[in-house]
């Protein structure tokens, strides 16, 4: 377990993720312009880094996150952390050991830093059903559960869409159920954490 403050975004990684391929591409384009203005080498120097950069932006983050997620879970199991519930959100993974009152967190934009926090550090946990609009337009595009750790708000989406769904639609109800369940488990972990502290 670590007591360090959670960090959702590693800005060095985020900037590197975006800028590094641009730098490589620029370097290759310059090389091509200066030394190989025509021919096969020019095509290779322009096309290969461009395609690799696009691939990297589309898949790179997900692959790095997936690898670290598996590593994180393995490390937790080795440390005796009992994963009662794990929620894999798009931008973060939340795993809870209710008995020990501990919560494991891993963020998409900070995949190399793993956090295992004492649930007593969570000051509030709640569900946001994203309800907006009135009358027949009432609906939601996002359902999430949120919690505050050391004054940092963590939002984990249980449902997202680019369309608005009615509040009684299956998608929204499933999202609310998942969020309600996670908030309930987080609160149980908070109770255990306070008990363990005494």
């Amino acid at each position, binding site marked *: 377990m670590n007591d360090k403050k959670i960090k959702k975004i590693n800005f060095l990684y985020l900037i590197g993720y975006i800028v590094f391929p641009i730098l490589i591409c620029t370097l290759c384009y310059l090389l091509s312009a200066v030394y190989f203005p025509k021919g096969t080498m020019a095509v290779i120097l322009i096309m290969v880094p461009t395609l690799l950069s696009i691939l990297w932006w589309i898949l790179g983050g997900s692959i790095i996150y997936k690898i670290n997620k598996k590593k994180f879970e393995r490390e937790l199991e080795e440390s005796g952390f009992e994963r009662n519930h794990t929620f894999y959100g798009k931008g973060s993974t939340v795993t809870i050991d209710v008995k020990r009152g501990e919560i494991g967190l891993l963020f998409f934009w900070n995949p190399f830093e793993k956090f295992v926090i004492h649930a007593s550090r969570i000051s509030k946990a709640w569900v946001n059903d994203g309800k907006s609009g009135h009358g027949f337009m009432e609906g939601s595009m996002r359902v999430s559960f949120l919690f505050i750790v050391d004054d940092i708000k963590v939002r984990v989406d249980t449902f997202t869409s680019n369309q608005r769904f009615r509040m009684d639609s299956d998608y929204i109800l499933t999202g609310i*159920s998942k969020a*309600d*369940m996670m908030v*309930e488990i987080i609160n149980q972990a908070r109770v255990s954490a306070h008990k363990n502290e005494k």
Partner: protein
Amino acid sequence: MSIISKIKSVFHDDWCKNCHCEMEVTKKQLYMLPELVGNYISHQNKEYYKNNLIKVNKKSDIPTGYYACGITNYWCSKCSYKITKLTIFLPVRNEEKIEEIIVFKNGELDDFLK
């Protein structure tokens, strides 16, 4: 027997398929199904329900995120035709998200429901 009754019996599980009339409810009970939201797997096997259903008195007894199963027994007073209808749903606050409806027509769950 009207055509409307015949049509109704086709679309309603609680209508007798032989007499085309509405059947009587003989038993109603709520159970908890130990399956979590997002991980529901459909089961048609009676043994699965016999082994896993947990009797509860009301919806609030079911922990958040778990499925519920409402079992209703129907009986036709004219021809004694019996069915058992399982309505599997996810209770979400004041709503119910129906996942599946399973009908057992040959008394497969009779011993379990006694």
